[in-house]
């Protein structure tokens, strides 16, 4: 005689908590392996979960509609004895629920999609609203597709599946399959087709499920999209956006965890943008879609579910090539982009407690780099730390460090220090992955090193 617990399952590599949207069983119900027992809503989708053992539901611990349930929290109990199913008993054996499909990349078997409660067509010039980065990206695409019939989006799972990471949620229904186009899993081919369509005066948005897969297509991005304007003496513009999650997600190891900021920033003819917040995501993506040049738009999967205040106006855009001072400070400048901006802000809060007043710059665009904003900050603080998730060698930090010593050497009171990922392929093990990725504490330590 024993009771077993059913735990809140992790349904994606980046999921930390979820909502119990609906119970599909009640106390006393008989369950067997494969029976659907509940609907769990993650930040990406609502998914049905299955029981993996036989028994009778004895208790529903968590009520329907409860939000923010951490993974591995017990949500129900079951017993192998029908009578006991009505008795509470603490004796438990942990029972982890299987999801229907275990593919690494967001295989959602049955996904009931909840669109945000935001009215997609509303527009208010002054208003701002807290939305996720994912919603901000979707809104940007949606608004630009509404404004310009030549804009279309193509990529793996962007249409019927509504995006592997749900960024393109609702777009197929709104715009139809002429403009929201699923591709085969053939990056080289469909990227080249996107480039050709851009040469043909359309404005494609090419989604890479992750930027790791853009390596299959990198010849078309660099040799065809980036260089043809120059090689044609200015005739052959290529108005295209290559976008998708970049960098490490969580526990997906070396082939799926890499930052391409340095790779693409190396190439004249490309603009490289990397948003952090919802405001960045929406304002910069809208500008990118309107831009007549090829743009590499590096998002971050971990950021997709995070919420920030974001202007709701469909006229809202942010200029490409301009950084944002996220926090004013006087003692040291910390420059960062994408997910590292959040870590830099965390670090600056900690440093504040140590009497160090840090200025935090969100780069937003990596090419063309807003060097002026960085220099102006360094003139004030005389110290600089660069942060990036990617490898340090030949990285963005190396470039900024070099540019600052060339352009603002006399303003520096200390060497420029870099915070970056370790020089190793991304390991899978949780502890090793954490060691490989730059953490808030690394930024704090570098700053303290400068002042020591």
């Amino acid at each position, binding site marked *: 005689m024993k009771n077993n617990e059913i735990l809140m399952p992790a349904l994606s590599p980046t999921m930390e908590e979820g909502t119990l949207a609906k119970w599909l069983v009640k106390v006393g119900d008989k369950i067997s392996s494969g029976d659907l027992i509940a609907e769990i809503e993650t930040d990406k989708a609502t998914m049905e979960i299955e029981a993996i053992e036989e028994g009778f539901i004895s208790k529903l611990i968590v009520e329907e509609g409860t939000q923010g349930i951490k993974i591995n929290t017990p949500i129900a109990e079951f017993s192998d004895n029908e009578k006991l199913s009505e008795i509470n008993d603490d004796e438990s054996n942990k029972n982890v629920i299987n999801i229907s499909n275990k593919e690494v990349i967001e295989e959602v078997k049955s996904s009931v999609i909840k669109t945000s409660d935001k009215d997609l067509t509303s527009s208010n010039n002054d208003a701002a609203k807290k939305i996720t980065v994912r919603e901000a990206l979707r809104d940007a695409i949606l608004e630009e597709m509404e404004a310009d019939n030549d804009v*279309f989006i193509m990529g793996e799972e962007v249409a019927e599946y509504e995006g592997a990471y749900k960024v393109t949620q609702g777009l197929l229904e709104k715009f139809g399959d*002429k403009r929201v*186009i699923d*591709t*085969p899993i*053939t990056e*080289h*081919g*469909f*990227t*080249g*087709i*996107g*480039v*050709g*369509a*851009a*040469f*043909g*005066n*359309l404005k494609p948005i090419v989604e890479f499920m992750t930027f790791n897969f853009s390596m299959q297509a990198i*010849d*078309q991005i660099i*040799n*065809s999209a980036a260089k*043809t*304007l*120059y*090689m*044609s*003496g*200015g*005739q*052959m*513009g290529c108005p295209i956006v290559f976008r998708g999650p970049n960098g490490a997600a969580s526990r997906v190891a070396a082939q799926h965890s890499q930052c391409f900021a340095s790779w693409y920033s190396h190439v*004249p*003819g490309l*603009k490289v943008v990397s948003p952090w917040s919802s405001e960045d995501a929406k304002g910069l993506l809208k500008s990118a879609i309107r831009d*007549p*040049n090829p743009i590499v738009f590096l998002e971050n999967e971990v950021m997709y579910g995070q919420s920030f205040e974001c202007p709701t106006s469909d006229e809202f855009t942010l200029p490409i090539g301009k950084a944002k001072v996220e926090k004013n400070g006087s003692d040291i400048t910390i420059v960062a982009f994408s997910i590292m901006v959040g870590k830099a802000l965390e670090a600056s809060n900690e440093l504040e407690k140590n009497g160090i007043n840090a200025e935090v710059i969100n780069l937003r665009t990596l090419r*063309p780099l807003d060097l002026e904003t960085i220099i102006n900050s360094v003139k004030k603080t005389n110290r600089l730390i660069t942060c990036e998730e990617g490898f340090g060698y030949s990285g963005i930090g190396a470039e900024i460090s070099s540019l600052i010593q060339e352009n603002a050497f006399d303003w520096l009171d200390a060497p420029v220090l870099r915070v970056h990922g370790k020089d190793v392929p991304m390991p899978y093990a949780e502890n090793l992955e954490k060691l490989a990725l730059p953490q808030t504490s690394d930024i704090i330590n570098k700053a303290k090193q400068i002042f020591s």
Partner: protein
Amino acid sequence: MNEKQSDKLVSKKKSNYDLDLLLKLNEQMLLIRRFEEKAGQLYGMGKIGGFCHLYIGQEAVVVGINSALEDNDTMVTSYRDHGHMLVCGMDPKGVMAELTGRITGYSKGKGGSMHMFSREKGFFGGHGIVGAQVPIGAGLAFSHKYKNEKSICVTFFGDGAANQGQVYETFNIAALWSLPVLFVIENNLYGMGTSVERSSSTDNFAIRGEAFGVENKTVNGMDVLDVREAALEAVNYCRSNQKPFILEVKTYRFRGHSMSDPGKYRTRDEVAEMRKNGPLKALQKLILASGFNESDLKEIDNKIKLKVNEAADFAIESELPDETELLKDIIIE
């Protein structure tokens, strides 16, 4: 083609084609021939640098295909592109000036032989990476379809490119999405110095789209009228069905892969034999058989030579790009 065969050709086709068409095809092929000979000469004089891939021997392919196209159709090819540009109606002066790297060239001297474009004439390059133009051509066809233009994009590539992976990715998508793209495989038997039999497991390139459901045909590329016939059918198929089609054209380049090709991979006899049955000779034989006289043909040739010489003079006399050009056209501001 031996003497007897070509006589048969004359008798078969004499009645089907009017002289004006034959003369027009002759003029286009001859322009390419004389242009390329001149380019070869300028290369030898050091006036043209880098890579320079001549089209001599293959003229019937692009001229025959082009004769089946409509004004708004587009074209994209590899780096062996001079012939394609001339037949699209691009100015020989601008093309030659680009070969010599002058500001008056189609790319202001910044693209060179392999990278030239004219949106106005529907020519989308001129691409230097083997096979890269294939998805680009399908993308242009996508844009035609998206905008309901009823135009098609002709995408040329060689037997060498036909083994690239992205070609098959493109065949699949072109068939899947029903794109109006005509893939023309210019099979000149050699990918640089490697013969088809040493590079390809099978030598029938036309059927390589069959697994994707792409219709195909193979045609003799040394006869411009055969190419034209096949092209008319293929172009009509792409346009009216909004579907891809593969046309393999068997051809031969008389010169090396590029100017620096020692040509050790094939015998002089082989080249000489192919030259004897060149596409220009076959066509001119037909023209003469139509009652046109040899001296008039010679006069056409002289006019074309004059035009090509003017292009060469223009190219040599034009200015190099101003140094300020170095940093222009990288990004649209």
